[in-house]
């Protein structure tokens, strides 16, 4: 029996609702940073031919996220950063995204019609 204790039903957990994937590791963090515009032009898996550059991009994106979120700028995926990334938030990107890049994958079928209006 679904129990209702509060008039506004706020105490009832939606058992059947899906849960957003908690961000626990650097890979998920990189997805987050890419999605909200902190990492530009390359997806988390990138094209793999410049691991050094990708990790530097990840660190600087992490630092930028920490800065705008008012966190200590450590460049590390620390607990405070993890907690901030898992807060409820708006889905609009934080940083100006290069629409063309965002809509036109570097690799993929030629033609890239997604950017044509």
């Amino acid at each position, binding site marked *: 029996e679904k129990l209702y204790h509060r008039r*506004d039903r*706020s105490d009832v957990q939606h058992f059947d609702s899906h849960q*957003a994937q908690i961000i626990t590791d650097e890979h998920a963090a990189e997805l987050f940073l890419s999605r909200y515009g902190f990492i530009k032009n390359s997806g988390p898996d990138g094209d793999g031919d410049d691991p050094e550059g990708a990790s530097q991009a990840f660190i600087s994106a992490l630092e930028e996220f920490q800065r*705008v979120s008012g966190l200590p700028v450590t460049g590390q995926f620390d607990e405070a950063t993890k907690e901030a990334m898992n807060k*409820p938030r*708006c889905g*609009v990107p934080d940083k*100006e995204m290069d*629409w063309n890049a965002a809509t036109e994958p570097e690799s993929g079928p030629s033609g890239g019609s997604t950017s044509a209006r």
Partner: protein
Amino acid sequence: RRKRHLAGLMSKTRPRRGLSEHGYMAFSKKLLKWRLIGEGYSSQLAVEEQRYIFRLAFRMWSEVSPLEFVEDTRSPLEDVEIRLGFGTGKHLGCNQRFDGTGQEFAHAWFLGDIHFDDDEHFTAPNAGSGISLLKVAVHEIGHVLGLPHIYREGSIMQPSYLPQESGFEVGWMDRKAIQRLYGGCKGRFSTVFDWIRKERTPYGEVVIRFNTYFMRDSWYWLYENRNNRTRYGDPVTLQAGWHGLPREGVDAHVHVWSRTKDIVYFFKGTQFWRYDSEKDRVFGQDPEGHRYPRPISEGFPGVIGPVDTAFYDRRDSHIYFFKNSLVFAFNAEANRLARGFPKNIRDLFPAVERGDHPNGNIDAAYFSYTHSTVFLLKGTRFWRVVNSRQRRRRLSLPRNGLLPHKEVEEQWFDICNVHPTALKL
């Protein structure tokens, strides 16, 4: 290479709809329609509650910008500028899936679509738990209007949700941000005045308080001088706050306040009312036995209504009535028109800077206790009357001289209309 070249051209030629620091003016229209999409109702709140919260959210942006919003449930959808809806996971044909409970709770697209993740626990304002739908709605509407995320404490446009503070309002920073895109609020006023009241403190002392009021036809705003903004939730209708005054508004307010008199009058057309500041309503019959409204010519012989505006000058205990280009000075103690009046407004209130003068037909003559001076308002401008302190410093200033005009919106901020359908929220 050709494709890349074209893409480069496009990014240069069309305005970048990305999120530059100040955002962009998303709409050139001042009246915007919105609708909660039928198939996008939330499963958590009653539909009426959802619509009420969105109406309030739109009103809150209207209170601080020249934009007005009206809910439109009839027009073809393509005529509705802002469309809101709830969904979970893959929703409303949107290509950005929601992630379930936690993290992303809503997003907005610059073409006017706002989606809310119905897996989140959205609650009504001040519920004290869950995620306030009002706060999220105000945030997402900010995006649709062109505002980016603002990483400042107190801004509603911060990307992460802050638990509900009681009494959430659009803060100063966000007001400036939206006005940077759409400009400030302009408009003519019927009258402006400081309303003085005597109150008794818990210790039985009588203290005198005042508040500043701006009236525009049948609406009014209380202006908080200390906070440089109007009271939260204003404008309200005249009927709601000034009982017994004509529904369509007044021409003038006069407070005769001297050693022997403390009387508040309102004027409209050819009639006037006396206001009972204690009971906060107009007198039906005042202690002297006069029944209201009364003809102006009866109470103020020599003055013919309607008047443009009026104010009481405590320095000489005269009421100055303004009508077209004439000024009638009325001796409130002797109860008669002062000798030599009416006079031309240009003679009585000369321009300090040649040519910078309202030339009559003013909207309001307002003595401000905050500024200890009189202002003459007309249209979107005001002229400050030279006061005695200024004349002591600059002897060349004429008595009652009008200093060069300024814009009302540069001195009194955020006196913004809302759409009539949002007035009663």
